[in-house]
């Protein structure tokens, strides 16, 4: 090494390099010949990197993350030693905050910073809870640096080759653990979209690597957590149950007419007419219950609920039948002697019912009861079903996306092997 504390003349090409990180910089590459060197001694064992790469974010570029301005100090390309896939890391530096990283793979970015206290002691084998998030081990690997450029606060080449890396994810967060014989370094990271990276550095997003697929820490959806959707859905369900109890409890279910009609009283008339009754309390429902003492017989009737003031008719029909017998040593029956008709939204007023009956073979009578303001469960179930569509679609979609995300992991919880 030669020159002042903050410049280094490259022994390979003689170029004098300015050290921006000053005393913190422990390794760097020559700006001219790209030779990798450690401060204090030359790296005589390593020639220039055979792999070539260009950083998408230029060295020296400044970007703002959470209000803190970082400068890009170094750029490395790492290669996983087992599957040989490569990714890129940018070393960032702020004099007050220290250093941080940007990691990019297939156009998906993570902003990563070291944390003083790791979420767990040692290296968790599979997963752990931390800060309300459930972190699962996504990958465990060794990596080598195949290209480096710029300045580094550690020997990025030797450190990379001697460490085992663990990555635990709880999208959009990731905890990384770099462990070797001497030390353990925990870092926390968070997914960043290409747009956020471009905005942070004030550069066009099209200059960044094209995004391919979903990042391994990319959340399924931004804006809320799955747990919050569960809480919101449960709160809505509880509200719905409370509302249904309220409507059940406040429904008057007032019997406004009840009577029995005999066939022989019909004489030459074609229909019966009930006595008049008042429906009160505004617009409410009406339920008409019909009973006929049927024995292997049927009964059918057309009904007209008539508002005596306006003349408005609400027409409906009811068909009931009941059959029973004894066959093969077993008794059987089908149908019912009762039937009900529900009429929605009947305004208050004075009403009567015209009944046009058709009797079967032996039945001679039937009864009718009219009840005002009857509660209904069907609206409750329809409402709950409609409100459940979004959470259901969300969690199905989440399951599919998560299964896809973990396809690249050796520790997928979605495989059944």
């Amino acid at each position, binding site marked *: 090494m030669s020159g002042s504390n903050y410049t280094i003349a490259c022994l390979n090409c003689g170029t004098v390099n300015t050290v921006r990180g000053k005393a913190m910089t422990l390794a760097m590459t020559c700006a001219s010949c790209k030779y990798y060197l450690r401060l204090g001694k030359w790296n005589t064992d390593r020639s220039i990197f055979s792999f070539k790469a260009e950083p998408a974010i230029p060295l020296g570029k400044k970007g703002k993350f959470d209000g803190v301005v970082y400068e890009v100090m170094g750029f490395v390309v790492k290669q996983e030693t087992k599957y040989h896939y490569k990714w890129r890391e940018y070393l960032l530096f702020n004099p007050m905050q220290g250093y941080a990283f940007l990691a990019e793979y297939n156009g998906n970015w993570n902003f990563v910073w070291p944390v003083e206290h790791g979420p767990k002691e040692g290296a968790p084998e599979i997963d752990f809870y931390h800060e309300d998030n459930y972190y699962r081990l996504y990958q465990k690997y060794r990596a080598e640096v195949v290209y480096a450029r710029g300045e580094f606060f550690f020997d990025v080449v030797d450190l990379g080759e001697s460490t085992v890396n663990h990555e635990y994810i709880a999208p959009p967060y990731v905890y990384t653990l770099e462990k070797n014989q001497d030390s353990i370094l925990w870092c926390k990271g968070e997914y960043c979209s290409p747009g956020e990276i471009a905005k942070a550095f004030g550069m066009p997003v099209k200059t960044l690597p094209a995004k391919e697929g979903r990042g391994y820490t990319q959340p399924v959806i931004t804006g809320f957590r799955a747990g919050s959707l569960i809480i919101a859905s449960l709160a809505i369900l509880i509200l719905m149950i409370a509302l249904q109890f309220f409507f059940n409890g406040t429904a008057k279910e007032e019997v406004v007419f009840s009577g*029995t009609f005999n066939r022989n009283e019909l004489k030459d008339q074609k229909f019966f*007419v009930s006595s008049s009754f008042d429906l009160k309390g505004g617009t409410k429902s009406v339920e008409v219950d019909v009973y006929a003492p049927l024995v292997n017989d049927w009964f059918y009737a057309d009904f007209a609920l008539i508002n005596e003031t306006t003349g408005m008719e609400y027409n409906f029909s009811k068909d009931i039948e009941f059959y029973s017998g004894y066959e093969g040593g077993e008794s059987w029956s089908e149908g019912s002697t009762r039937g009900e008709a529900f009429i929605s939204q009947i305004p208050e007023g004075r009403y009567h019912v015209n009944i046009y009956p058709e009797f079967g073979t032996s039945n001679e009578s039937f009864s009718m009861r009219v009840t005002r303001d009857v509660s209904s469960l*069907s609206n409750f179930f*329809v409402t709950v079903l409609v409100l459940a569509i979004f959470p259901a679609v969300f969690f199905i979609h989440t399951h599919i996306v998560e299964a896809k995300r973990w396809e690249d992991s050796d520790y997928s919880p979605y495989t059944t092997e």
Partner: protein
Amino acid sequence: MSWDDLKGLKYYLGFAVVVISFYIYSNLVGWRWLNTTKTTHEQGASRSHSRGYFYHK
């Protein structure tokens, strides 16, 4: 659940408010959405016509 989560869920919560309001309105006016009873409405005959066949029970 944080404020950010609530903001993220605003469209779902807004949708829920609309659906639940419709449910409340329907229950207040006795409107059953899935009604197996087929009902037709018509402006019927005069009151005197009906009374002509009035049968009290």
